[in-house]
């Protein structure tokens, strides 16, 4: 095998960052709900698909300009997230994690069914935020959409960290997560906090969907396929850590790309997930996870 040139290596890195940024955005949404309720929210994958669907409808059904359509899609996905909590999760009146997780799996199937009815089963093309002409950097090329993903992902992470560490709302969320009864005693409305966390998760998922579907193409189950990798990225980063989710996503994406480029394109998933397992053997809590659980 011939050694890849510097330009080629850079191209492989860009490819890895492209996938990595997508995984990272999805992983972030998983983390938000985990941080307030301690559960894995499987509707996250459908909120990703919904983000793309809402953007598609806002652009082509209502004819909105791109910035407005993007904002609308994120808002609509956030509202959907709230509805999922209010209508789907809260009536169960359960704090058993297993029950709640199974509920989210069921809700995920329902959401997918609704999407199939509302938007059909066909693949759709979503336009990117700005022109689709690739940008040349040192001989390698990168799509402007990827730069948008980097920028908005970074912004979203900073916003999340700020909310969780610096605002009363964030304090309440952490309080509900660590002890819901004690939080209720001091007057925190746990239901409202959980609903807000679902709204944030919905917004993150919607943003992810609106940003990645121009690259992946859009269908009612696009989030499921990406969600698995995003889930793996979240675990790799230490489930719940925002910085970890981003690091895990980017690491998984780059590993995949380098495996495809350097060793074998047929076995790139095997190589990437093998390495992921190895990392978890050495650090079971993930890269940025806290050891105590």
């Amino acid at each position, binding site marked *: 095998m*011939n050694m*890849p040139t510097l330009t*080629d290596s850079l*191209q*492989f890195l*860009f*490819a890895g960052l*492209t*996938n990595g940024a*997508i995984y990272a955005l999805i992983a972030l949404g998983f983390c938000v709900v985990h941080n307030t309720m301690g559960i894995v929210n499987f509707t996250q994958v459908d909120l990703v698909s919904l983000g793309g669907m809402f953007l598609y409808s806002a652009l082509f059904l209502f004819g909105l300009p791109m910035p407005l359509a993007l904002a609308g899609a994120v808002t609509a996905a956030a509202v959907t997230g709230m509805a999922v909590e209010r209508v789907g999760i809260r009536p169960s009146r359960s704090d058993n994690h297993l029950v709640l997780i199974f509920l989210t799996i069921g809700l995920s199937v329902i959401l997918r069914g609704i999407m*199939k009815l509302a938007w*059909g*089963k*066909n*693949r*759709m*093309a979503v336009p990117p935020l700005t022109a*689709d002409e*690739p940008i040349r950097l040192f001989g390698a*090329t990168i*799509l402007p959409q990827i730069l948008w993903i980097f920028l908005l992902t970074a912004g979203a992470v900073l916003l999340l960290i700020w909310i969780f560490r610096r605002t009363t709302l964030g304090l309440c969320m952490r309080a509900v997560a660590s002890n819901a009864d004690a939080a209720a005693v001091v007057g925190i409305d746990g239901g409202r906090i959980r609903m807000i966390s679902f709204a944030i998760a919905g917004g993150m998922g919607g943003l992810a969907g609106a940003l*990645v579907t121009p*690259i*992946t*193409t859009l*269908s009612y*189950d696009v989030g499921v*396929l*990406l969600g698995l990798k995003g889930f793996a990225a979240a675990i790799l980063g230490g489930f719940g850590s925002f910085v970890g989710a981003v690091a895990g996503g980017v690491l998984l994406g780059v590993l995949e*790309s380098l495996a*495809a*480029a350097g060793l074998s*394109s*047929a076995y*790139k*998933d095997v190589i990437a997930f093998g390495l992921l397992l190895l990392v978890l053997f050495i650090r079971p809590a993930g890269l940025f996870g806290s050891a105590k659980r």
Partner: protein
Amino acid sequence: MNSRMATLAGLMVAIFLTWGSASIAAEEIRLGAFFDLSGPASNIGTPTKLVAEMAVAEINKAGGVAGRPLKLVIGDTEGNPAKAATLAKKFIYQDKVAAIIGPTRTGTGMTVKPIVEKAGIPTFMTVGGDPIIMGGKYGSFEYVFKSPQRSETAVKRLFTYLRDKKLERVALLYAADSFGKDGAEWMEKLAPEFGITFAARESFGPQDTDMTPQLTRLRNDAPQAVICWTIGPAGAIVAKNRHQLGIELPLFQCHGLPDPKYIELAGAASEGDRMPSTKLLVAAQLPDSDPQKKTILNFIHLYDEVYDFDRQFPINTHSGYAWDAVTIVAEAIRKAGTEPKALRQAIENTKDFVGVSGIYNLTPEDHNGLDIDSMVMVEVRDGGFVLAR
């Protein structure tokens, strides 16, 4: 107790009576039809079902088969082989169908194959994979037929074109699923016959979203053209990635992609891409001497204007397969009746049948009956498909 038993017995007699009289009065010929109406391939299965229903409606409008109307018994395989197997048994032993149309995908088709072989019910599938109608380790195929071209036929069509254009050193990029591997195997097997050599071979996962690493590697081996063998959105992503990398090599896609969807998904990046296709996509450009032209134009008229399917499912290269399957079976029933053995023989003896997807010449050895003349090379130009020069 006694009176209750009597009521029950009376009720059952009444049910049997109405049941029996209903089927005698209608005298309909039942055909089982099952496709992926939900699940990952539902965007292929749903229009296939619509076309099968359209074919049956048209046949019945023209007086049915030998005076008897056809009736489709529809089933949804959900892309699940176990579900397909259950449905096939239901068709055979409960609905007592004369023949079966479908399923949609090769995997489910292979599960159904031994069941219909054992029961001896003629089954016309609309699947892409060749093992359905291959013997040996793939089991017998006495009762199994398929209407889409073999992968082998599509590869031969593509290679003939490449040889004519003197593009003999090619790079191969295929999906690491059964469809992609099947295509890659046929290409490797047939390449020497056409004087074609492979500069590089790369694969990708059918659900991957970025193929730039593979394309970057291919480029370094300096091929004259790139052949991509996959179905679904991955093909459009390859086209976009090639555009992103600024690779000027001509891109050839497989016979699964000629579909307005491909152009929609890949956008301007698809311009100039070429692929083997049925004539359905370029019907208007066919010479009037083409024996299929009338049949195809009639089909398009029915599909677009009479039944109005095109708004939800624009016509693609696959649209005619269910039509061909249903009409060939109906023609065979007309000649031989519904006795399974005679029907199978009649299907097998179908000669010069002008279908939408090609002219079918079936034999006991060839349960597809289409050769490379049934396909044309098409090219994306100005956002539409035209005959490739």
